[in-house]
C-alpha cells in the first residue's frame, strides 16, 4: 500500500473485490447460465455457476415414451446439431435391438451427421468472432448455414429440430433435390469457410484476444471429463468416431486435428479444421453413395419390419404394413432386456446414451451423457485470473449449449 492508495474511513467495510452477477439473461452469455463472479478490477478472482434454468426433465419424460417417441426429445439436447443426437439415439436402439443397417444407410447417416457438425462448429466459431469484436463473420456465414438447413428440410421436412431418421434407417430416400443441394453446398461452402478463416485465423486483434485465454492442460481436461473439440484442443486425440467407430466411420479417411495449449485460439483452430475434415468426409461418403448400383442404390432402411415404422401409404393399402404399424405403435413388439451404453461424437464431444430396458414398452431408465454439462464444471478454473471480457470469450469458445447442459 503506497500513499496513493485510497484510505477508507475508520470502521467502513473494506472490500477489495467487486461481485458481478452475470446472467441468466445477460446478453454476453449465449444461453441461460448464471455466473456470480468476484472481480478484482477487471480480473476474475473466482466464479460460481448456477445451471438448470431450462431443465426440462428429459430423463423422466423418456421413461414414459416408447423408443421411437424419444427421438424428438434428443433433438432438443444440442439443438445446434440435432441430427447427430437423433442418429446417436437410433444407433443406441439398434445396438439394443440387434439391428444391422446396410452400408448405404450408414453413409447417408454420415453425410447428415457431418453436415450438422459443420452447422454446430460454424455457429460456435462465428460467435467466438462476435465476442472478440468481429460481427461480420457471424452475419456472413449464417447464410451458408441456411444451405445446410435446406438439405435437412429436403430430407426430413424440418430445419432445426429435425427428428430425422427412424430405427433402422431413414423415413424416406434422399430425393435428387437433396443431392443437388448437397452438391451446391459442397461447391459454395468452402469459399465461405475460407473467407471466415482468413478473416480471423491470422488476424492480429483476434489472435491477441484469444491466444492464452482460458487455457486448460491435458491432465486437467481429462480429469474434468472433457471430450470432443475442447479436449482435442488441449492435446488429446480422443475422438469417438475413430476410437469406437459407429455407422461405418472406419471406411473414411480423415485426420483428427489436435491443439496444444487448450486455449481459446486452439479451440477455434480445432473446430475450424474439423469443418474442413467434415467436408472431406462428406465428399467421400457422397462418392461412395454414387457407387451403389441397381437395387442397392435405393436402399434407405434395414429390413426389420418389427422395429422400422412402415410407410404411411403402405399402412393404408397393405395388410402386413398395417399389422406392423399397429404392433409398433401399440407397443406389442418385445424389447429385449438389457443395459446398453452407446456414444457418438456430438458437436461438443462424447454424447452418450445409457439405456436400461426391462423388457417393457418404454425404457426403464435412460441417461444422457451430455458433454456440455460435464465440461462446464471446469469453467471457474479456466477463467481464474483472466480478464472479464476474456472470460466471456472462453464461455463462447467452449460452445455451451443450455439445452444440452440442463437436459
Amino acid at each position, binding site marked *: 500500500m503506497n500513499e496513493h492508495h485510497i484510505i477508507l474511513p475508520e470502521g467502513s467495510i473494506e472490500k477489495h473485490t467487486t461481485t458481478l452477477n452475470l446472467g441468466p439473461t445477460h446478453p454476453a452469455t449465449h444461453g441461460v447460465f448464471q455466473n456470480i463472479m468476484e472481480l478484482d478490477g477487471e480480473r476474475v478472482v473466482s466464479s460460481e455457476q448456477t445451471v438448470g434454468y431450462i431443465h426440462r426433465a428429459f430423463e423422466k419424460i423418456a421413461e414414459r415414451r416408447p423408443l421411437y417417441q424419444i427421438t424428438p426429445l434428443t433433438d432438443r439436447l444440442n439443438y445446434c446439431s440435432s441430427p447427430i443426437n437423433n442418429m446417436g439415439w437410433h444407433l443406441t436402439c439398434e445396438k439394443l435391438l440387434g439391428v444391422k443397417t446396410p452400408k448405404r444407410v450408414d453413409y447417408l447417416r454420415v453425410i447428415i451427421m457431418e453436415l450438422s457438425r459443420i452447422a454446430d462448429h460454424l455457429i460456435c466459431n462465428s460467435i467466438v468472432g462476435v465476442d472478440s469484436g468481429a460481427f461480420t463473420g457471424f452475419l456472413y456465414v449464417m447464410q451458408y448455414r441456411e444451405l445446410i438447413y435446406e438439405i435437412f428440410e429436403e430430407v426430413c421436412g424440418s430445419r432445426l429440430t429435425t427428428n430425422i431418421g427412424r430405427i433402422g434407417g431413414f423415413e424416406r430416400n434422399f430425393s435428387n433435390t437433396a443431392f443437388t443441394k448437397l452438391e451446391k453446398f459442397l461447391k459454395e461452402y468452402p469459399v465461405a469457410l475460407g473467407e471466415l478463416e482468413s478473416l480471423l485465423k491470422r488476424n492480429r486483434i483476434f489472435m491477441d484476444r484469444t491466444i492464452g485465454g482460458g487455457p486448460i492442460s491435458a491432465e486437467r481436461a*481429462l480429469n474434468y471429463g472433457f471430450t470432443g473439440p475442447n479436449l482435442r484442443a488441449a492435446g*488429446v486425440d480422443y475422438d469417438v468416431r475413430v476410437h469406437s467407430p459407429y455407422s461405418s466411420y472406419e471406411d473414411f479417411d480423415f485426420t483428427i486435428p489436435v491443439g496444444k495449449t487448450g486455449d481459446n485460439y486452439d479451440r477455434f483452430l480445432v473446430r475450424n479444421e474439423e469443418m474442413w475434415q467434415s467436408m472431406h468426409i462428406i465428399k467421400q461418403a457422397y462418392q461412395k453413395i454414387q457407387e451403389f448400383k441397381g437395387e442397392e442404390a435405393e436402399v434407405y432402411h434395414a429390413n426389420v419390419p418389427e422395429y422400422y415404422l412402415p410407410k404411411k401409404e403402405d399402412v393404408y393399402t397393405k395388410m402386413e404394413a398395417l399389422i406392423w404399424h399397429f404392433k409398433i405403435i401399440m407397443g406389442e413388439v418385445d424389447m429385449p432386456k438389457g443395459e446398453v451404453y452407446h456414444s457418438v461424437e456430438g458437436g461438443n464431444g462424447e454424447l452418450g446414451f445409457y439405456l436400461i430396458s426391462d423388457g417393457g414398452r418404454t425404457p426403464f431408465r435412460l441417461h444422457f451423457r451430455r458433454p456440455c*454439462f*460435464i465440461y462446464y464444471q471446469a469453467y471457474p478454473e479456466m477463467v481464474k485470473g483472466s480478464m472479464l471480457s476474456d472470460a466471456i470469450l472462453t464461455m463462447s469458445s467452449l460452445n455451451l449449449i443450455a439445452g444440452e447442459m440442463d437436459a
Partner: protein
Amino acid sequence: MAITNEYIQQKLTEKFGDAVYNFEENYGMLSFETPKENNLKLMQYLQDEPSLGFGFLTDLCGVNYPDNKGRELAVVYHLHNLQENVRIRFKVFTSIEHPDVFTASKLYAAADWMERETYDFYGVNFIGHPNLKRILNVDEMDYFPLRKEYPLEDQTRIDKDDEMFGRG
C-alpha cells in the same frame, strides 16, 4: 497387450475377492457390482493399477429400482481406459432410507456435478462431496423427482381435462 474383459475380471477378483460380484457382459461391456463401502477403493485401484489404467470417468448416474427391497437406489459408474479403449461399468446399490455413498469427486473432478445431479434426481447423499446441493432444480424443491413414485406431469395444471387424455 490389449486388456480383455476376462483379464479385468481376473485382476479385480484377485484384489478384492468377494467384494466384486455379478460380473456380466452386456453388449461387449463388462459390468459388475461392488458394495457401496468399496466404491472408492475400487476406483482408486482401477485408476492406479498400471495394467488397467481407467483414468477417465465417462458417466455417473443414478437408477431407482423401487421393487428391490434394501437396494432401491443404484449409482452407476462408467469408466474408460482411453489408451486401450476399453470401457467398464460398475454399480453400487444402497437402500433408500440411508442413501449414503462416498463421493468420487476427489478422484475425478468430473464427478462433482454428476453427483450433484444424482443427488438432485434421486437424493443419493454423497459423503465428502464439497458442495452437495441441487443443481438443475430449484433449491426449494422438497422431493427427488426422478424416483419412480413421483409423477412426471406438472401437478399444478388445471387446463387438462383428464377425460380428454384417456385418464377419466
